[in-house]
């Protein structure tokens, strides 16, 4: 049972049992206000109404799953960073609600630090979110108010859009577009607009430099990124994530062990990982928000929930980037049977994210000239070489092997 058919069943149930009776009752109460062209209750009975409702459910479920993963990713990042720096990291956990309950009940809080505050720290993200919502939204006096407000909206909406685009498995997918990965990359490439907009509208030299750097970086790294992805598309013959994962699962060289794409296309894998790291602006490619040079880059002038949106969007993009890398090169949700495919997928994604976190605390930031040199002079030729190898494997070698009866290798 796929996610969408589950949602459709749920939508039918809610429409029949809850929504249609409610709207009919309302029509009975206020007959003059009913729509003459047809009531909502009638529309919910049709196939179109049910499908719309099912879409609503599917998108919301995907959004909830993505947001849960976002909280886990941020928590993981903070905890591992703390371990690398010999700290303890966030420790506010669900047990601290005990204290709140005692306080609300009227009794004096029994300050049990060891039991109540030495937790795993998942609640810290919630606390930070509440703090960010409660803060004042400051707009600089000389800023372009409209663009200043639009920047975060473009950035967060294009990032949240990513959450519903990639499937967790062949059954758990909110959208199953045939050009799925192309849509994901299109959504990825909306972000530079938001970045440039907010960098320009802040009317601040640091924001301006950060926005320009971000735009230059994102645009120059998208070319090798897409070229390294082209090899995978050639091998699978499709943009559909489900087809790509099935192709990886089916291809085997020896002893029936599936060979995922990162072995035949090792160059492409390396290029893709570097490019996606630059695309989601993580260390060592976090030039747009280099704290040492530009105060906070293009997010300098933002405060409160807008700043939190930028922070959230960056982690969502990181999660989505890791998911794309998993689908393209690490076999997606393919894995041995007893563990469900969704868990396999998330395990691979989290492994990539943990690797990124270790990279973040290991290596220094690179310079602007170095980042462009790396992008244009090294990654672009490497991705082209990878593409040539794939073309040889997929097109040329099979063609000649038919003529001169070469052994079947690929």
């Amino acid at each position, binding site marked *: 049972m796929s996610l969408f058919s589950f949602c459709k069943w749920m939508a039918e149930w809610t429409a029949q049992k809850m929504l249609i009776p409610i709207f009919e009752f309302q029509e009975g109460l206020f007959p003059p206000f009913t729509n003459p062209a047809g009531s909502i209750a009638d529309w919910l009975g049709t196939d179109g109404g049910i499908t719309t409702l099912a879409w609503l459910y599917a998108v919301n479920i995907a959004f909830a799953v993505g947001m849960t993963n976002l909280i886990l990713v941020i928590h993981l990042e903070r905890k*591992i960073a*703390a*371990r*690398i720096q*010999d*700290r*303890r990291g966030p420790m506010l956990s669900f047990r601290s609600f005990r204290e709140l309950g005692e306080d609300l009940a009227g009794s004096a809080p029994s*300050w049990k*630090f*060891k039991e109540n505050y*030495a937790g795993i720290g998942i609640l810290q993200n919630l606390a930070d979110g509440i703090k960010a919502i409660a803060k004042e939204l400051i707009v600089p006096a000389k800023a372009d108010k409209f663009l200043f407000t639009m920047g975060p909206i473009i950035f967060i909406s294009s990032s949240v859009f990513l959450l519903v685009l990639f499937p967790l498995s062949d059954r758990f997918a909110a959208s199953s577009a045939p050009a799925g990965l192309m849509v994901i990359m299109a959504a990825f490439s909306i972000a530079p607009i938001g970045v440039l907009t907010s960098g320009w509208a802040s009317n601040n030299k640091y924001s301006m430099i950060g926005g320009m750097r971000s735009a230059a970086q994102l645009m120059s790294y998208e070319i090798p990124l897409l070229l390294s992805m082209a090899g995978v598309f050639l091998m699978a013959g499709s943009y559909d994530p489900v087809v790509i994962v099935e192709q990886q699962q089916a291809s085997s060289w020896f002893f029936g062990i599936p060979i995922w794409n990162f072995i035949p296309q090792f160059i492409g894998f390396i290029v893709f990982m570097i490019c996606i790291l630059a695309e989601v602006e993580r260390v060592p490619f976090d030039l747009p928000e280099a704290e040492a040079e530009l105060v906070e880059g293009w997010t300098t002038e933002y405060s409160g929930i807008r700043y939190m949106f930028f922070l959230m969007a960056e982690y969502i993009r990181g999660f989505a980037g890791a998911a794309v890398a998993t689908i393209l090169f690490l076999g997606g949700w393919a894995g041995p049977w007893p563990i469900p495919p969704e868990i396999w997928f998330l395990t691979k994604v989290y492994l990539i994210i943990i690797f990124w976190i*270790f*990279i973040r*605390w*290991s*290596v220094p930031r690179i310079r602007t000239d170095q980042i462009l040199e790396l992008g244009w002079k090294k990654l672009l030729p490497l991705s082209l070489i990878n593409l040539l190898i794939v073309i040889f494997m997929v097109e040329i070698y099979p063609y000649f092997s038919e003529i001169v009866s070469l052994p079947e290798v690929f």
Partner: protein
Amino acid sequence: MKSERDLGIMDIIVNPMKVTLKQFFKSTFGKPTTVMYPLEKRAPPPTYRGMNAVIWDLCIGCGICGEVCPNKCLKMKPVDLSDEEQDKAWYGSHLAKRKSKAERPAINFGHCMFCGFCEDYCPTGAMTMTDFYELADTTREGLIYPARSMKVDLEDAPQLPLTNYMMESPVLDADPCIGCSKCVDNCPTNCIIMDLGPQNKKMKSGKVRNVENPYFDYTICIGCSTCVKVCPADCLHMEPISNSSSSGLSEEGASNEA
């Protein structure tokens, strides 16, 4: 020397990753350096200077601590000693004879810089600095600690021999001395006695009398200069120890030598 261009893949990513991974496993499976502060506290070093405490049984109220305090945050405050405290006080028996009350130090910790001079100069070892450092308060007034709040009782206070850390001692200029014996009453260590001096003074009535002058026992003098402060006739002054003679009486040209 390696230039920037010679850095290989090992230097750029593998070696840094090794360091971070090592630290990660060390602090994940070992104990993090951060202590959970309200629950566990790190022991301060032996020479740590925290909040002051005064062993009242040893304190003789000489006021040296207030004199050496660089921030002038330590003041001697008169306190009412109970009978028990009066009995236990070292050199305390004479305090009842005093006309003024006994004095003990009170500290404004908002000004204190914890230099430890009061502890260093205390002649009896009554002023100590503890390990206690949680002095934060919600008001400024809360940081002013009255004398009694710093009282500490020890089972048996070590009564060390008195030492003159000030390296000064009072010298009598016998001429203007009127023999009032105020210095004897106020000396915290009882090192002064009134003795018949070499000085003959002419009274108003015309008689010439040999008046009593103070005689200092420099072996127990602590150089607190209380006698100098209370002297009504300005006949006492402090001099560094090397310049003062062993007798309490002034000599001709003693100050000129200095």
